[in-house]
């Protein structure tokens, strides 16, 4: 049916189910071809790209981790030299934090939040497209620099003065700082999109107390991003200014201060941990609910715990600075706040345990990942309580104990739930199931490999091994444990390889997934797998927290939307009562071109400050073209 057949004000009630589906499919479609691919604003396509790109960065970062483990396997090993090693561990850390962990969590938000709240696209879909291209450009920048032996060698934390104009020679530190600008720009854009999507585009009836926990977690995460990431933007910008135009922010000889960097970095850096962890918490809540076959116990405490964690996250950055010699009053405050964050995290664990206890657990791969998560994450949380104590931290700070601790938190606490989430939502995203038998192997290998790799690092730290050393002497007696760790890392690597194998193979030959393969209760399972380009042919209407359990046989929907333009519902913040039939932007090439223009400006500014001036002109042009109305039905109101 062509556009001309449809009256301009025709509504979805005018068409039968099948004709409506066809009509909406052509309206929301991404055209084939390279131009279509570059112009799409479909949150599912962009989210999928984000996820795939982030996992490629995980793989690359994992290769660096293995290189580190080969180097450290024996004392005085010569596999990597000092210079390469320092680049490798810096890029490993920066890559895992900025190019993998944060983007992959946001990517799941980009893909899932619109589906879970029952809308047709994310808010500001063009900004979403822009954010992906900027993220990709930042990632390529970092890895190209490493490939050209220009990789940053200053640690992912880039402490001044080592990263400053006097000691950070060449362009290595500038590359790091500009990579930050790229990734934070994209993260901030996505955060605003998710906040507005959750605030304004929830399905009618999805009042605050009916929002799925994963959506809550993405909302809190987005606020954390909005409040925390400006700190690292300010930090990296001032660092570039010090390096490029001779400002003195970090030069103690001219009134600057070295610790200012650490305050700014960790004011971002600690919330960063929760930016990675809170979405994982949301994933765990989703998986536990579905596979315990029971509504979550303690919905309200879980939501409050998310908020408490989010607020406390801003009150404990100084625990990364316990050995810099700050006043004791300050240290005591930050010990107390760092300890206190264990309480909301404890509440979450208790709620999941209670749900599993009272439910009927089905031991599918996603739930196995959750079990692996609880066992390992609790260790990471408890060692977190240890490092929160100032005196104890003076012994373990900057040692392998801390390396062990944060890998327990980040891999145990975030990657295990993330992989569980991949097994859980893969059928929705790809339309095929992943392999259950392989999945069990993946869980087992990762769980065993992870613990064998990282647990001994606690001991290595206590027996004196500092972080970030490219080698150590045989007289230190760290060789045996390090060899054990390196060999265990092979098991961990095999687990990841098997995971990637399963994910790729299942995309081609996995069992075809039905709409709701797990019998899950939330809205993303109320549409086909994978969802049509418009997500829902009719926008769902919700009357409870678990719509597909409460009404298993028919989905309540709204009617009366236009079918000559991309249209979705805007609802009120608290009770999600419908306010308007808003249009959603069409595909556009301009976000891509704006990202190119921004990339040119940001990269050129490493070499000349004037690039900021002339580089803004093409950015302004692309932005104007992006926003200039094109007279499509979407512009009517």
């Amino acid at each position, binding site marked *: 049916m062509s556009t001309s057949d449809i009256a301009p004000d025709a509504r979805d009630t005018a068409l039968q189910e099948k004709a409506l589906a066809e009509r909406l499919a052509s309206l929301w479609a991404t055209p084939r071809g390279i131009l279509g691919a570059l112009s799409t604003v479909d949150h599912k396509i962009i989210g999928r790209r984000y996820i795939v790109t982030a996992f490629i960065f995980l793989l690359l970062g994992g290769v660096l981790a293995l290189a580190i483990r080969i180097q450290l396997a024996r004392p005085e090993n010569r596999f990597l030299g000092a210079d390469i090693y320092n680049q490798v561990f810096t890029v490993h850390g920066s890559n895992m934090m900025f190019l993998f962990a944060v983007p992959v969590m946001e990517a799941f938000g980009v893909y899932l939040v619109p589906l879970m709240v029952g809308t047709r696209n994310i808010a500001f879909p063009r900004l979403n497209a822009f954010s992906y291209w900027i993220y990709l450009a930042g990632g390529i920048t970092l890895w190209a620099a490493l490939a050209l032996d220009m990789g940053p060698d200053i640690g992912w934390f880039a402490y001044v003065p080592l990263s400053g104009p006097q000691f950070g020679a060449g362009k290595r530190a500038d590359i790091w700082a500009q990579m930050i600008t790229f990734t934070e720009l994209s993260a901030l854009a996505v955060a605003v999109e998710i906040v507005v999507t959750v605030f304004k585009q929830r399905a009618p009836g999805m009042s605050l107390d009916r929002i799925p926990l994963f959506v809550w977690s993405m909302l809190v995460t987005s606020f954390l991003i909005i409040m925390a990431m400006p700190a690292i933007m300010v930090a990296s910008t001032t660092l570039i200014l010090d390096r490029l135009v001779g400002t003195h922010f970090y030069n103690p000889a001219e009134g600057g201060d070295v610790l200012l960097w650490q305050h700014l970095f960790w004011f971002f850096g600690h919330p960063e941990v929760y930016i990675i962890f809170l979405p994982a918490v949301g994933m765990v809540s989703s998986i536990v609910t579905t596979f315990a076959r029971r509504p979550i116990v303690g919905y309200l405490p879980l939501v409050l715990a998310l908020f408490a964690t989010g607020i406390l996250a801003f009150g404990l950055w100084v625990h990364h600075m316990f050995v810099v010699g700050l006043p004791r009053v300050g240290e005591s405050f930050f010990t107390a706040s760092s300890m206190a964050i264990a309480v909301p995290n404890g509440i979450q664990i208790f709620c999941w345990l209670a749900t599993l*206890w009272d439910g009927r657990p089905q031991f599918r791969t996603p739930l196995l990942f959750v079990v692996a998560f609880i066992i390992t994450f609790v260790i990471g949380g408890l060692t977190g309580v240890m490092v929160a104590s100032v005196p104890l931290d003076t012994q373990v700070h900057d040692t392998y104990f801390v390396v062990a601790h944060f890998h327990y938190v980040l891999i145990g606490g975030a990657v295990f739930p993330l992989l569980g989430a991949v097994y859980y939502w893969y059928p929705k995203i790809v339309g095929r199931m992943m392999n259950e038998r392989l999945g069990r192997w993946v869980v087992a290998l990762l769980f065993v490999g992870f613990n064998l790799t990282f647990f001994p690092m606690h001991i290595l730290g206590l*027996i004196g091994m*500092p972080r970030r050393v490219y080698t150590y002497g045989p007289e230190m007696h760290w060789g045996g444990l390090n060899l054990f760790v390196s060999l265990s890392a092979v098991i961990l690597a095999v687990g990841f390889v098997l995971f990637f194998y399963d994910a790729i193979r299942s995309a081609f030959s996995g069992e075809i997934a039905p709409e709701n393969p797990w019998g899950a209760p939330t809205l993303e399972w109320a549409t086909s797998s994978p969802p049509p380009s418009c997500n829902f042919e009719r926008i769902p209407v919700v009357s409870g927290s678990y719509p597909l359990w409460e009404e298993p046989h028919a989905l309540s929907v709204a009617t009366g939307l236009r079918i000559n333009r991309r249209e979705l519902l805007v609802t009120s913040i608290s009770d999600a009562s419908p306010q308007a039939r808003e249009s959603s932007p069409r595909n556009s090439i301009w976000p891509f071109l704006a990202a190119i223009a921004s990339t040119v400006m940001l990269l050129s500014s490493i070499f000349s400050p004037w690039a900021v001036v002339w580089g803004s002109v093409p950015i302004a042009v692309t932005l104007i073209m992006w926003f200039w109305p094109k007279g499509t039905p979407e512009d009517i109101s």
Partner: protein
Amino acid sequence: MRSGFKPLLGAVCAFPLSGCIGWQSALSPHGAQSGSLLRLIWLFVVVCAVVWILVIVVLAVALFRRRPIGNEPPLLEPSRESRLNGIIAAATVMTVLVIGTLTLVSFVATRGLDSADENVLTLRMRGFQWWWEITYLDASRPDRIFLSPNEIHVPVGRPVRVRLSADDVIHSFWVPSLAGKKDLIPGRDNAITFTATRPGVYRGQCAEFCGLQHAHMAFLVIAETPQSFEAWRRSQIAEAASPSNDEEKRGQSVFTVKACAACHTVRGTSASGSLGPDLTHVASRRYIASGLLETTRGSLAAWIADPQTLKPGSNMPSVPLSSDELRDVSAYMASLK
């Protein structure tokens, strides 16, 4: 997991030359501070282990307890939900109590760490890329001030206060067998106090990433009886030994004429450079190049011949020397006890 858990083993080997398990270990305390820190570590480990085991037991029971057959999502009973919420609340209260107690214990432990003492021995330590300059201060007798790069000697039982500063990048002082760590920060002054309780050789290492050779920035703390400490101090205050044979004499003249003297001091000679470590008593120290090599004539020769292979990026340049000159200068260095 080897001997990490056997702190006593470290005490057995008192003066190792090629290292010893426990000479750089928080688990082998030989000082007042590290001892109380280890007690704190064990307290936390035990409490955390108990909490972890409780969680795992509950998890195991939750997963595997017998329950009625069925697959449908259950209807919620309000009484059941409120009972579960009550249990969660109780567990939360327990968490708060445990966390509160650990916080208090931590505060108390912090208070005990640096005690003011009249009899304190004060040193100044400056971190450089990548070595440590240690100055023994004496406010009343400036002629008793001397430098001891990369090696600290302390009398057992006497509190030592190290004033820490850095001129290039951030470094961190850490001798785990004696105390926790403290950063050396450009533009800021810090200090750390420790008391060695047993004679021994303890190793310290820079714990803040400081660039290319961060891995090779170690130093030794040698705790000895007050008598041997005083003897050592006297020998260090003395000027360098005079060359005792022709080889050493030739070595001395190579040292003072070639580039060496531009960066290094040997008191009693014309060499008075200050960019690199003071070498007046270099051969009295156990290691050269910040813990990289044990001090022998051979290692001195190797280091002088090719520092950039042994420690790439180090500020020590390769000075072109003939093989004779190299032999002479290393003999001279080895004579500087």
